[in-house]
């Protein structure tokens, strides 16, 4: 875990340096006071200082027994993959059908529900989204090839 935490500290350090670099390309002063680069520059400095302290703290706490990958991290990653696939399919399947399939996959993967239950939930979700958001609330959700 401490590797991950040290890496986190270093990532913040890198972010701070990048922020300072880009902030310096913005005017620090303007005619009437501080310019657009004023606050970001100081944010960058504070990030760098805090990142150095945090990284040092994490290095000192190297004997920490916690692990970054927990037994169910794999499941969280699987759900993330399903979400990404669903989002990628929005232009083709549309929002309602895409989310119907997402619910079906999530129920099957996480809950181990039977295919029948998953299919019924998928159809129910698709129809509910279509009527709730599209018809009732008037949110123009992306429609796929099916027209839903």
């Amino acid at each position: 875990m401490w590797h991950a935490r040290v890496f986190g500290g270093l990532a913040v350090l890198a972010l701070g340096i990048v922020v300072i670099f880009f902030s310096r390309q913005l005017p620090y002063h303007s005619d009437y006071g501080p310019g657009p680069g004023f606050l970001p520059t100081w944010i960058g400095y504070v990030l760098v200082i805090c990142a150095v302290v945090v990284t040092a703290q994490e290095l000192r706490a190297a004997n920490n027994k916690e692990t970054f990958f927990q037994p169910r991290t794999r499941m969280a990653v699987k759900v993330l993959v399903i979400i990404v696939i669903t989002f990628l399919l929005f232009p083709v399947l549309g929002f309602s059908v895409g989310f119907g399939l997402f619910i079906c996959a999530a129920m099957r993967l996480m809950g181990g529900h039977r295919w029948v239950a998953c299919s019924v939930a998928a159809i129910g979700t698709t129809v509910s989204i279509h009527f709730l958001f599209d018809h009732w609330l008037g949110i123009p959700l992306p429609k796929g090839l099916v027209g839903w």
Partner: protein
Amino acid sequence: MELFDNLYNGFAIALTFQNILYCGFGVFFGQIIGVLPGIGAPTAIALLLPLTFTINPTSAIIMFAGIYYGVAYGGTITSVLINVPGESSTVMTCLDGYQMALQGRAGAALSVAAIGSWIAGTGSIVLLMAFAPALAKFGLRFGPAEFFALTMMAFGLLTVFGGENPFKVMISTMFGLLLTTVGFDVVSGMPRFAFGVPQLLGGFDFIVLICGMFGVAEVFNSIEQSEDEGKAIKGKLRLRDMFLTWEDWVATRWAIVRGSIIGFLIGMIPAGGITTASFIAYLAEKRYARHPERFGRGAIEGVAAPESANNSASISGFAPLLALGIPGSATTAVMLAGFMMWGIRPGPLLFTQHANLVWGLIASMYVGNFLLLLMNIFLIPIFVAMLRIPYSIMMGLIVLFATVGAFSVNNSLFDVWMMLGFALLAYLMIKLKYPIVPLILALVLGKLSENSLRQALMISGGSPVIFVSRPISALFMGAALLAYLTPALRWFLKRWRAAGQEVTVGAVPS
């Protein structure tokens, strides 16, 4: 008399059929959210926010307030029955509440929590009515220097209350501030950190961020930590078990009063929050108890004090939000975003420009607290049944609402991907122990902070003396400095005590 006139007008608004319905829905939904571990008030409000574009703002804010204090009630149920806090604000309730359930007194624990919460909530509303308008009048004297100093104080207090490691709190706060600088600079009109991406020129939308950071990130987090699912419910729950005995009343009366006062005061502090309030109330109760050894073994005061405190704090948190436009917690920060979405800027002028909204909201709190009391005594079995909803379905619904919320802001799939990106960021931050709340508060206050800073420096011709030469600003700056120094002072104190102990141990002859 003006106060009663205002309150009368407030009740005329809160008691319309439509607003009672919204208030009822809010507290009922809040109770459910409180019962369900892994989803909190900010998430619930963030997910519902985009759906309220077409609703009257007064009704919407009444509903959201109902969710907020409803959550504080609802989290108790799982804390008592299955030793799993539905909300972080009910963690302390687990200690004695669950022990009471194991002793067959779950009904009494839930009742004292409900009654204590109701008394504390109602008392807190009375104090809010008296205090918030006075605070707003005081706020009318604020200029840019005072507002900047106030935001500095809020950020400073975050380092005290916002998390275990003050440096990680600072990083989170700075990151939130950094996000507010993305897009066109309001003063110069110059784009900052947009890197040629047209969607970034307008900056990050708050709703997109909170849908990701509170909604979807919470899903990943809950999936990882879902070993507690399916815990057996301890204790029987019949209606007659819900009534308190005379001994219970005697034992808890002062705990409720103390919890209410502590909750009200902590809730008023920017970044204080309801979790800190319940924690401090519990510790205070234990410290002043005649038999502190009973705490943790089913002491009814150990349930009454934190429950009263968290409800009192959830109400008093509205004082800085409404009167100064400064949110004290993640939930009030999300509500502030809602106000802005409806074109209303909370602050000193809110009480005069939108008096109906403010007093309608305050009056609705009486209605909501009363509805919650009834629900908590008669409808507990329904809320317990909610725990049986499979997480795979609930998770799907959270992702669905978060996605719709992010999309509906600009009708853009870019925002949906952005929401997922922020969800991953928040998930990693939680894993690496960086708190999310400071980021959210900084995100909400960032623009106010930067604009006030620049306006103040324009007024003073670039001299920072303006922040210490004006009394109110100097007071806030002093408090901010003290808050920033508190972690260092704690560290020195700890080292000093440790050194003292070493000397004492060394002095003992072997």
